[in-house]
């Protein structure tokens, strides 16, 4: 059976989702996205710059017909703002697959889970397919699933921190309790973090800053692509049992 990555009944080739923020320019962003092999990119909804009409548009660099745009609600601190943003996003191009992110803490950018949960319920009723940024809390993950979320996206660490997965146990617990796509969102710092996420059984990872702010973003985009593939293959291969004592790899019999 082929190993498929399916979100809200749609198949995707790459298990790596990338953000499009923090790049030096649109060209760099588009090239990094291409090298990453991602077929989903997150995008933000913001005011059109009325005074500078020559400012390049993201859609001119990344074609939404070729790559799935996943509108997010970054910068929203309550349900009302998040709902408004995603309804506008849907109006731009008919997008129903969205990333919900309601923040509650301006310093650490932790998710405000009460508002996140109520927004998930409303958006699902309105026909949105909601991928939800959340805490690595198994109980809240279950509630989101019951509310109709299309994917559970716990943080590895605070957004943009690059600290890697801080609570692997909780991620494993969430993995074991849900059949929904489980995607690590936020906090990864280097390619090996993505491999760890995939080896924990996650279905995918979402990365922005770790690529955009690497010294060589193009190389890091490629590194993440390979890391996700390696992690997935490793997970599916079934790791060997751990042992506290050494066991020689070469036969003892026949030693001269």
């Amino acid at each position, binding site marked *: 059976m082929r190993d498929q990555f399916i979100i809200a009944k749609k198949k995707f080739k790459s298990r790596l989702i990338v953000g499009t923020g923090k790049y030096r320019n649109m060209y760099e962003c588009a090239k990094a996205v291409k090298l990453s092999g991602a077929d989903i990119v997150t995008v933000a909804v913001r005011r059109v710059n009325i005074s500078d009409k020559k400012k390049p*548009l993201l859609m001119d660099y990344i074609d939404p017909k070729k790559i799935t745009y996943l509108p997010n609600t970054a910068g929203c601190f309550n349900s009302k703002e998040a709902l408004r943003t995603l309804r506008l996003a849907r109006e731009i191009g008919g997008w129903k697959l969205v990333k919900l992110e309601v923040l509650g803490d301006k310093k650490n950018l932790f998710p405000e889970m009460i508002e996140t949960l109520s927004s998930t319920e409303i958006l699902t009723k309105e026909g949105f397919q909601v991928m939800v940024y959340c805490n690595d809390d198994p109980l809240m993950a279950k509630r989101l699933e019951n509310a109709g979320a299309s994917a559970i996206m716990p943080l590895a660490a605070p957004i943009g921190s690059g600290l890697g997965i801080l609570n692997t146990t909780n991620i494993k617990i969430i993995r074991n309790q849900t059949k929904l796509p489980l995607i690590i969102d936020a906090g990864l710092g280097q390619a090996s973090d993505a491999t760890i996420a995939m080896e924990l059984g996650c279905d995918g990872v979402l990365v922005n800053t770790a690529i955009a702010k690497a010294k060589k973003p193009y190389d890091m985009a490629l590194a993440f692509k390979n890391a996700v593939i390696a992690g997935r293959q490793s997970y599916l291969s079934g790791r060997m049992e751990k042992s506290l004592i050494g066991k020689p790899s070469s036969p003892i019999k026949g030693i001269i």
Partner: protein
Amino acid sequence: MKKIKKIKIKLNGKDKQIPKDFKIDKLINDLKIPIKKVAIELNQEILDKKKLSKIKLKKNDKVEIVHFIGGG
């Protein structure tokens, strides 16, 4: 020449003077905004882009025009 009466609206958070009875599709056209790449809100209500030619702007209307930018 008859002077055209102007009204003030808020466009993306900034004051803008427009002629009275100005229609919203005209505003979008004048700003050279690619309609397919944006969403438009009038007083916090999302507008159907097919019906823009039917909507006249009124004094103190709040218009928001948004699009997608890079984000994580």
